[in-house]
């Protein structure tokens, strides 16, 4: 019988406390792994809210402000971009495509984004994914609307529903565009980005809503233009809020950015969305670090629990040690026996923790994907996970040396008989 087998048999004999100890280590490991997984995926998801877009251009402001209103639809633009400027800048030979966006209206608290068909052709998020439809198709007519998944779900809209948009972005808007109702033609799949919370209409539709408005005020009844009349009119917008740019080659990004920033006719800013998103994550992402530290502490607590369990078992196992000594075990056998126990706790606890994490991932991945749009990739343990597993096993063994050393001292002092 090897010492390893003895350690195993001994643990089996104390299986209740052993299993509890292993569980507490496993749960702490699973917690740490889970937090790290969500942290990494949330960061990935956040920083790839916009991907494949090289630059975002808007009226001159800080990059954070521009990012907030153009991507997250939070706050307002300081100014608009005239249609002429947009046309001029997007005809730059370096530009492959642009997506104009026009903001300012809302529906029951959800922002309305006026845009073009290019949104569905070129806009990418996450791992270079296009917007996809769970139902319906992109807008085609002036009064067509496409809903983000959250909008459709929360408000209970289906294809063909008729919605009236409101002027301004307040939840209880006083000025309604109910004279020109829109029809839902498409509902987007969840993306886990702000795109879930928008209503997209064409720039023409946006223009039609405001065609009879004068100086930001609704028309008096006599001058109002009906939806059908507006449809027949020239619906060229005079300005847009911002536009996304895709370049033919990313090398041109800085040159194009400079040409926008130095544009003579209008004060504009161009931002690199990846960089700005990274900055914003630094701002909002400090909580995740605190969470990681806390779960690290839970692992330490789990290991200390193991130490306590082993230390308390030492006294009642003194006779066992004395018997082992009498049949010929050397004191170092006792040391190895004890440290093997810690090693078993560490290895089995960590392995079980990994199993918990992966089991949970497999169970919740589809749910998280469909409800939150957050894609939790199930991958083999990476560098962090391997390092963590190694650290926990080494930590358990190092901590296990404390009771092992005490048992070694005891067995030297006790010899073949137990004196307590």
């Amino acid at each position: 019988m090897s010492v390893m087998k003895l350690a195993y048999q001994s643990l089996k004999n104390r299986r209740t406390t052993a299993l509890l100890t292993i569980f507490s280590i496993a749960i702490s490991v699973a917690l740490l792994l889970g937090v790290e997984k969500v942290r990494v995926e949330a960061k990935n998801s956040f920083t790839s809210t916009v991907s494949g877009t090289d630059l975002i251009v808007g009226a001159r402001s800080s990059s954070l402000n521009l990012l907030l209103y153009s991507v997250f639809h939070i706050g307002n633009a300081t100014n608009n971009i005239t249609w002429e400027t947009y046309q001029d800048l997007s005809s730059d030979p370096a530009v492959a495509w642009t997506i104009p966006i026009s903001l300012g209206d809302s529906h029951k608290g959800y922002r309305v984004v006026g845009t073009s068909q290019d949104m569905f052709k070129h806009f990418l998020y996450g791992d270079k994914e296009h917007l996809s439809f769970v139902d319906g198709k992109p807008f085609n007519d002036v009064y067509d609307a496409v809903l983000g998944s959250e909008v459709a779900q929360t408000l209970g809209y289906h294809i063909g529903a008729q919605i009236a948009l409101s002027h301004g972005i307040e939840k209880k808007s006083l000025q309604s565009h109910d004279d020109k109702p829109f029809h839902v033609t498409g509902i987007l799949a969840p993306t886990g980005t702000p795109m879930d919370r928008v209503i997209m209409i064409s720039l023409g539709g946006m223009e039609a809503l405001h065609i009879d408005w004068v100086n930001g005020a609704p028309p008096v009844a006599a001058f109002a233009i009906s939806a059908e009349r507006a449809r027949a009119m020239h619906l060229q917008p005079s300005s847009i809020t911002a536009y996304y740019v895709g370049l033919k080659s990313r090398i041109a990004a800085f040159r194009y950015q400079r040409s926008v920033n130095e544009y003579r006719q209008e004060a504009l800013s161009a931002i690199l969305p990846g960089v700005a998103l990274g900055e914003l994550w630094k701002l909002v992402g400090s909580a995740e670090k605190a969470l990681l530290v806390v779960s690290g502490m839970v692992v330490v607590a789990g290991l200390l629990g193991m130490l306590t369990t082993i230390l308390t078992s030492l006294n009642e196992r003194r006779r066992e040690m004395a018997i082992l000594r009498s049949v010929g075990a050397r004191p170092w056998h006792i040391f190895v026996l004890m440290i093997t126990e810690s090693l078993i706790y560490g290895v089995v606890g960590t392995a079980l923790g990994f199993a918990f994490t992966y089991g949970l991932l497999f169970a919740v991945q589809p749910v998280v994907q469909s409800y939150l749009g957050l894609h939790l990739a199930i991958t083999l343990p990476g560098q962090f996970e391997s390092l963590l597993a190694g650290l926990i096993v080494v930590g358990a063994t190092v901590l296990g040396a404390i009771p092992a050393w005490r048992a070694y001292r005891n067995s030297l002092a006790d010899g073949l008989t137990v004196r307590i």
Partner: protein
Amino acid sequence: MLDTHPSVITLSDVKFSWTSGTPVLDIRELSIQRGEKVFIRGPSGSGKTTLLGLLGGVLTPELGSVSVLGTDLAQRSSAERDHFRAEHIGFIFQMFNLIPYLSVIDNITLPLSFAKNRQAAVAKTGRSKKEEAIRLLKHLELDDPALLTRSVTELSIGQQQRVAAARALIGQPDIVIADEPTSALDTETREAFIQLLFTECKAAGSTLIFVSHDATLESLFDRSIALQELNKAATPAKKTVEVPWCLL
């Protein structure tokens, strides 16, 4: 064994104390012959634990020499003494002899994993470890196969002591030291146990050292030694002074 020295154990001028200045053991001479069945009568305080510690090589004397099978234990390192004990001595204690989480067979074969020579002795018989353990159990009249599957903690104390005897005897160690092995047994099983022990020690060619405070067993042995008389440092049994009621 190749050793032809007739004396298996020789103690000469051995002094031992836990705290310096107050010796607990002081033996001028003690010699035990090969194959002898020796009864050592030792009440508590007679230095019994210390003597067994010295014979087992767990303790070393301050003065004098403890020679077992021609090896002066005092001259050996503690690792060598551990090794020596594993290979040459089988122990049986008063009670709680067995490792609770091991099966009967695993308890009996446990010494073999620490002593290569005893493992070799079993191998020479042509039997496996398990077969040898079962053979010993049979000789100790524990041949009910149901016992083997039972947890050792479910055995009666008499059965436990016989399992412990089988463990001490496996691999034919030169010396078997039994420390009060019968004190937990009742009188009927006591003598039967001792007779079984005698038979097996004889078969294995082992010298038996049997320590007990029970003088009624003395007559069964080849020789009896009173430890209080042998040990000059033994503490005399305390006399109780009766205090008259009126003084309380």
